[in-house]
């Protein structure tokens, strides 16, 4: 593989990679520069591909005048709670799946893989009916529950694969040294697989952070809306304020980008270990 490639192939690869980079970045660039333009420069047919007058007014309006800070707070609470609950459940269940032999072991794994094929839209309608009977509609708890349940199968599969990578000997050594099983789990194994725990948390967090349809169906009061739902109210208006909307889009993206940048190196590994949902 270390042999030099022929020149035409190198050039083709370079062009492909550059072209794809442009294709990915151009929409984000357009989103970003729009958020920095004053209204007059946005609504003009003489389109500025480089903003002439840079302003932060859109962001100031977004955070000070609109309800965005409420949506932001709701999204943070919701995603943290989903990440926390999802990860705790996955640590317990993943440990059981990786470390124990038990009846129905295969069934559990196939069952979890199967749930990955169930489309969310399909679950949504009966869930809403059930939620309205249980009084869970339009509550933060109900929404957290909805996302936590949604994240369980993937988190369990992911967590199990991380447990599988830690050699059993470590635990046995800890047991011989007088730890009990829970002590060895929390004191020896979990610290070792902290990257896995963090990756699971981030997947659950970002899933909840980015979802729109679940929150649209479950939440109706303004005070409980998340960022996508809150901003979505404005996107169907005839006269969209694109400056504020794009600023909102950027503000909604930054947290999940930071999370993903943080876990970049786990993504490929985690995915190839049998995870399936994009």
């Amino acid at each position, binding site marked *: *593989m270390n042999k030099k*490639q022929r020149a035409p192939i190198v050039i083709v690869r370079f062009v492909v*990679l550059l072209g*794809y*980079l442009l294709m*990915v*970045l151009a*929409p*984000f660039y357009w*989103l970003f520069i*729009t958020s920095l333009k004053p209204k007059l420069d946005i*609504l003009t*047919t003489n*389109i500025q*591909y480089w903003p002439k007058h840079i302003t932060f007014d859109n962001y100031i309006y977004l955070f000070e005048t609109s309800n965005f800070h409420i949506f932001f707070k709701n999204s943070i609470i919701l995603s943290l709670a989903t990440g926390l609950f999802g990860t705790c*459940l996955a640590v*317990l*269940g993943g440990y*059981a*799946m990786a*470390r*124990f032999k*038990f009846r129905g072991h295969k069934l559990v794994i196939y069952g979890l893989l199967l*749930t*990955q*094929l*169930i*489309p969310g*839209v*399909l679950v*949504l*309608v*009966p869930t809403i*009916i*059930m939620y309205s009977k249980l009084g869970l509609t339009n509550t933060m708890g109900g929404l957290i529950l*909805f996302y936590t*349940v949604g994240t369980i*199968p993937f988190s*369990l599969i992911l967590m199990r694969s991380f447990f599988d990578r830690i050699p*059993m000997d470590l635990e*046995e050594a800890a047991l011989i040294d007088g730890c009990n099983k829970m002590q060895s789990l929390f004191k020896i194994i979990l610290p070792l697989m902290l990257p896995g725990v963090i990756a699971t948390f981030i997947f659950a967090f970002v899933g909840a952070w980015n979802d729109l349809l679940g929150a649209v169906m479950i939440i109706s009061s303004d005070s409980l809306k998340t*960022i*996508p739902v809150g901003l979505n109210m404005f*996107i169907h208006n005839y006269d969209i304020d*694109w400056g504020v*909307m*794009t600023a909102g*889009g950027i503000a*909604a*993206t930054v947290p999940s980008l930071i999370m*993903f*940048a943080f876990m*970049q190196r786990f993504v*490929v590994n985690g*995915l*190839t270990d*049998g995870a*399936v*949902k*994009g």
Partner: protein
Amino acid sequence: MKYVRKNEPYILLFPSFFLLFIFLAYPLLSSIMYAFQSFKLTAPNAIGFNGIENFKAVLTDNNFPLIMKNTLIWVVLTVGAQFILGLILALSLSRPFPLRNVYQAFVFLPWAVSSFVIGLTFRWLFNTEYGPVNDILLKLGIIHEKIYFLSDPKMALYSVIIAMAWTGIPFFAIMLLAAMQSIPHEIYEAAEIDGAGIISRFWHVTFSYIKQTILITLLLRTIWVFSSAELIYIMTTGGPANSSNTLASYMFMKAFASLDYGQAAAIGLFFMVLLLLFAFIFLRLTKFEKAGNL
């Protein structure tokens, strides 16, 4: 060596499976029941069984053939574009080059961004008056009149497909790249010694090694794209006049906008049958049993 204990694994798995049964399995099964009920939030006193009325209403709806046609176009074009572009990207990424990690971090960006923000961005890109796509196409002389990307019934579906394909390329690329990186180097060297050219190497080595990954990814992506309603909802809400509605977005709109849960559940059941049928045929055709690593 694994522990053999009677209760411990069940106790550890109980919380997860309790929630999955109550809030995933039960609702799914109950939706079968709702499909045969009149269940409109607008008429809460008229809830009750109505036989196959919901199915009749849905299947005889004038828009239904259009929606099925849209669904087919949506799935085939989106998955096809994602696969071809994802494969090209994965091939280009498969050999090391300077700053490859930084490059990967950038091109996998769409994956981390919410559908909402992507929908918002593409709505704005495709804006007829002030959007750059029309502007650039006009300036390059490719078109001579502005295109109404999202409000022209002939264009709306394809505009959303572009956004959807763009979003899904990284997923394909990651899966294929991971598979390519597991191909032993010696095989390429052996092929080269045997005088295999670049195309023959791709076909006989790369492709035959990653075939199973391609099949799994295609299956998963098809199901995922088939069920994905978010971008459609955000960019066009299925319009104008259902011209960009697919089965998934139509179902969501039935539940969300018309509050007719009975009909939505009937579409859902139809949807499930289609999915199972697709998965079955796909597995049969591709002899999936040999696909290994799950």
